[in-house]
């Protein structure tokens, strides 16, 4: 393994560990969104339950809250689009690199 590869792999492992460790160390924590925690603070400051003056358009369209499963589906779609684009272009770049290297080798011979 080259040095770069080693760096990349170890960096990825560190990132994964930072993400996963809280899950195991904080047993029983809720892991709700910090956005929701924000609305709790608003309630705390204003002293009254805050009533949002605008409901998300999606909730208006489907007439209710987005089901949790559907929400995670949509989040996955978002991730999928991103990962797809990145890997498509990365694949192209890697192949291009390979071809260029081969060409250079032939030239040298």
């Amino acid at each position: 393994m080259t040095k770069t590869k080693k760096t990349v792999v170890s960096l990825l492992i560190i990132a994964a560990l930072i993400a996963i460790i809280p899950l195991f160390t904080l047993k029983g924590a809720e892991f709700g969104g910090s956005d929701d925690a924000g609305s709790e603070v608003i309630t705390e400051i204003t002293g009254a339950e805050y009533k949002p003056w605008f409901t998300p358009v999606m909730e208006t369209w489907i007439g209710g809250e987005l089901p949790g499963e559907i929400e995670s589906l949509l989040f996955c779609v978002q991730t999928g689009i991103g990962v797809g684009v990145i890997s498509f272009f990365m694949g192209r770049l890697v192949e291009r690199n390979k071809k260029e290297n081969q060409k250079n080798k032939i030239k040298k011979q």
Partner: protein
Amino acid sequence: MAFTLKTIEEEKMNQKEKKIVALAAAFALVFGVAPAANAMHIMEGYLPPKFCIMWGVICIPFILAGYLSIKRTLSKHHRSITILAMAGAFVFVLSSLKIPSVTGSCSHMTGTGLGAILFGPSAVSILGIIVLIFQAILLAHGGLTSLGANTFSMAIVGPFVSYAIYKLCNGIKINKHVSVFLAAAMGDLFTYCITSVQLALAYPSESGGIGASVVKFLAVFAPTQVPLAIIEGILTVVIIIGLETYAKSELTDIGFMNGGEN
């Protein structure tokens, strides 16, 4: 011969892609300007209307600058469209991953640092707003009314902070990868600091005023975000390493490789 064919094919592809980006950008522009649609991860309806309008209006010049900046980059360096698409996709991926944090709640990253470092901060405002609109409409995450405020924090201040830190680190000759890490991590963290300030401005505490509110909101957002900011920094460095290895020519085009190796 095969080589010429390939270039022609690539050019065609690029033109098509350019159109797509232009379309997406136009779409973003219409949304940013038309209904004074507003704010990032401030929830829908949680920001009083006058703040929604204010943040929306503040964002307009940045979005315009971003559009022009992207246009300029693409007309100068046609090939960099692939890297731009990847930077946009990076925002898509990172802002969709909700990650558990030490405080026992979840948050997600912004992914805007990469684009800011590669294409300059204003270009990222376009990439960011596309993601925010996607999330606001489909995911009820963030919101159309808070689009302006959210764009300001995630797609404008975050990238500008990243860019400034990256330039600063470059100036004092810190290792390139370390600067990338710092820039991305601080940009991410600052995004949430700005969100806190925005919420505090809208909801000043009765006893302590805006200052006390900022502290309260920061106490919620900041500790959660610190580990995520570190992860974002790491992932940005990984992508940069990958691009340095495989897309050297494009990075040279957009001026990233000018500093030489590290």
